[in-house]
């Protein structure tokens, strides 16, 4: 059954919120009152409950089953985090109320900072970026500011071909030219090519480690040294930090800046597309360039936030967002960290890697592995096993929906043909993985056996059949219009 739009069941006359009755009064709106109709439909509360309950049931979430979306780390979201984030002392405090009345909030930020800096063995962290990509911006801006401070403007940033699209986009945003570094056959960055590209124009190198193929860059320390010898900075995309948290400190590897996807690594629910949070840790080389606000202690040991650049001599590159960043995510992340403890975080990384290797080992005969070595937290297949079957990676993924799963990541990284990137995360039990593996084996066998029909119009058992994306883009309908009026 299709769910109507709110505009089809509600009306501008109905409301599901009560207000005190106002007596007549003279408004002081300066004659700028709204006269025209707004048009928003209202519904009484019972209908609101049903509309959104029914809509939700057309979604797939982690709470429903395995969500093996490579690079996205769809792990369990403990409800304790949600409960804590809703304590009025966190959820109902204003970013601009007197700092004396929010000491607990700033202390929480301080405690989170301790966790992030110690887990990475890096001295400072900027908490305020709103998401991973925003964190990249933070990191690259600090690098550019540092180069400028040295009077050494540079113009190029190196990114591997397999990088997340946000890496080159961010570099371009900061005025850099982007130069791609090729990968070797084993899925790692070609260190020789990288070193060959290092010259006095290179401001920074942006690597992801573990990389987007799910592999650890085993030459990372040598790469870092080469970067530093060139007077460049080493930016690490921390999207895959969840594979090594508690096991490896990026600071030890020579990283100068790394953003966390705080939400996915430390378990804020994805929420259908955010909000996220992207704190960035910095090395000593960059620590003078972090954005405001940051935490300081006043003379009495009370916490405060430095909110403004000083007029003279401040090397901070500025402010990335109003207020202090994603407090709601800080709360969830710290709750999650305290729950696990550093021992639990390490165990979670190990389990994530174990689960991925188990899936890889179990499916390598049935599907085609992109790289034949142990993987980290995700395993990568290409579409070799679908050759001549008439089934594409997309078809295969849509058929997974009929098996009760969310598809894996498809066609990323770009360096692999018809890529299928599977990240089970540490949240899956062996029982769940065995069920998943059985389904994948079944699908692979069906595809190879020539049963194209199972795939071509899949999913068959989802709430909706395949959607026409071309139609949507060709003549965009981006809002409801009442066609009757």
């Amino acid at each position, binding site marked *: 059954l299709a769910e109507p739009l709110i505009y089809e069941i509600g009306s501008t006359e109905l409301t599901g919120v009560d207000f005190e009755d106002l007596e007549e009064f003279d408004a002081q709106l300066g004659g700028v009152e*709204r006269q025209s109709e707004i048009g928003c439909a209202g519904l009484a509360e019972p209908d609101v409950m049903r509309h959104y309950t029914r809509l939700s049931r057309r979604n797939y979430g982690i709470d429903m089953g395995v969500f093996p979306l490579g690079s996205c780390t769809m792990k369990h979201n403990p409800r304790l985090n949600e409960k804590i984030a809703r304590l009025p002392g966190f959820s109902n405090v*204003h970013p601009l109320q007197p700092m004396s009345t929010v000491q607990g909030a700033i202390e929480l930020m301080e405690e989170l900072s301790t966790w992030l800096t110690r887990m990475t063995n890096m001295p400072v962290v900027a908490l305020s970026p709103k998401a991973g990509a925003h964190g990249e911006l933070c990191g690259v801006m600090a690098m550019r500011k540092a180069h400028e401070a040295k009077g050494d403007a540079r113009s190029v940033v190196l990114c591997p071909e397999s990088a997340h699209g946000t890496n080159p986009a961010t570099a371009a945003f900061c005025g850099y030219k982007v130069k791609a570094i090729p990968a070797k056959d084993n899925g790692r960055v070609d260190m020789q090519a990288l070193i060959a590209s290092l010259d006095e124009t290179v401001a920074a190198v942006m690597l992801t480690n573990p990389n987007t193929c799910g592999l650890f860059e085993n030459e990372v320390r040598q790469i870092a040294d080469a970067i530093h010898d060139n007077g460049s900075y080493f930016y690490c995309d921390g999207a895959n930090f969840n594979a090594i948290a508690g096991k490896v400190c990026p600071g030890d590897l020579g990283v100068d800046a790394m953003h966390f996807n705080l939400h996915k690594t430390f378990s804020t629910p994805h929420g259908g597309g*955010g909000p996220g949070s992207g704190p960035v840790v910095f090395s000593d080389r960059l620590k003078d360039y972090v954005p405001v606000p940051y935490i300081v202690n006043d003379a009495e040991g009370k916490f405060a936030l430095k909110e403004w650049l000083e007029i003279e001599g401040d090397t901070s590159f500025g402010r990335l967002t109003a207020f202090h960043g994603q407090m709601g995510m800080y709360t969830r992340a710290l709750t999650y960290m305290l729950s696990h403890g550093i021992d639990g975080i390490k165990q979670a990384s190990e389990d994530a890697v174990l689960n991925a290797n188990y899936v890889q080992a179990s499916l390598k005969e049935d599907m085609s592995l992109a790289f034949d070595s142990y993987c980290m937290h995700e395993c990568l297949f290409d579409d070799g096993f679908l050759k001549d079957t008439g089934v594409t990676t997309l078809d295969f993924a849509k058929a997974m929906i009929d098996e009760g799963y969310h598809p894996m990541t498809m066609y990323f990284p770009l360096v692999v043909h018809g890529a299928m990137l599977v990240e089970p995360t540490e949240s899956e039990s062996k029982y769940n993985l065995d069920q998943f593996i059985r389904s994948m084996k079944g699908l692979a066998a069906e595809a190879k056996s020539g049963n194209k029909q199972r795939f071509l119009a899949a999913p068959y058992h989802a709430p909706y059949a395949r959607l026409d994306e071309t139609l949507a883009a060709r003549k965009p309908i981006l809002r409801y219009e009442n066609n009757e009026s």
Partner: protein
Amino acid sequence: MRYLPLSDADRQDMLSTIGASNVDALFSDVPAEFLNAKIDLPTRKTELEVERHMSKLAAKNTAAGSVPFFVGAGAYHHHVPSSVDHLIQRGEFLTAYTPYQPEIAQGTLQVIFEFQTQVAQLTGMDVANASMYDGSTGCAEAIMMARRVTRKKKAILAGNLHPHYREVCLTQTQYTDDELVSQAANPSDPEAELQAVIDAIDDTTSCVLVQNPDVFGNVRDLTAVAEKAHAHKALLVAVFTEVVSLGALKSPGEMGADIVVGEGQSIGNGLNFGGPYVGLFATNQKYVRQMPGRLCGQTVDADGKRGFVLTLSTREQHIRREKATSNICTNSGLCALAFSIHMSLLGEKGIRQLAMVNHKKTLDLKTALNSIEGVEVLNKAFFNEITLRITGDATDVVEKLAKKDIIAGVPGGRLFPNAGLDDHILLAATECVTDDDIAALTAGLKEVL
């Protein structure tokens, strides 16, 4: 560990399937000297212990609902119906991914479509996107969008724009092709502030950013700004920090805005010490392909059933990489959901009532404060925020009131350091403010002044 479902026996079984002797063998690419670093952090805690620890931190903060509370200036203390928070916590919404697989994401997608419609209606614009991080980052995106549309570089920031928004714009565009001109704040003469913007517009201007109500709470009609901008082929970017004002005020669209960007926190979302919030972003049909952020569009599925998909994504970074219109990758999905549910509860009738209750409370607040010796309310026309000039240091007064458990507002100097506004206080009054709260503030102010 309560979140980890593998038993030790499972781990052994799995290692033997893999053919590895132990888990560290899987990490063999990590140079040995860096593996299993000693990290000085505490070990796991029970759920009860975590709750205790976090509750203790929370208890050190003064929550807005527990005291007379008048802080605004970009974030507002409103009441959110409990059904909103219940619904956004449904696992299917909460734990869903970005809706790239529309067959199993119609819940999220239809909500975005409804959200886009609501934002377009509130702002009086043609189309809106699926949300931005927040209002401040949305402003920076608007400046860059205006550059793409006009192929001109100079953006003028009005003086009474929220200073955090101004700083974000300056920071985010410092390495792009944009050229920003910031004007001076003018709390006591908002019409002059507007005139300064109008005067500065010329043929090199790509856009002007004007906030309404401005950061001091002043309400103006921006029509004249739009007219001047359009005469010079520049865009009017209308900014708001208090979305509830759109229930009472002529819409930015009606005033001639080309881009409307603002903060949606007031509807559906809590104060959260500054985040997460939800940026609203709307424009007119002709500029839609230059709009940043995600967009959801209507289509049909293979059975002809109406459905929704993310669309026009060729603008985005995962396709365009270094040529993308923005490096933004996520939106503020769950906050947008909360916004949309709250708006569905309100409807036109409710948002209008809510706006008028806010305005009435603020009028009451103004009347009460104006009666105090040594206090002057600067605003003539306002919505739910006003600015005081007092005799004395605002920071000192606000701190003294905080000691009495009255959270009075934002000292001018906190938002405008070294700008001569140290005797100003910015206040807001919402539907959460009671007559008792106003009386407490009035009495408190009299005592500390």
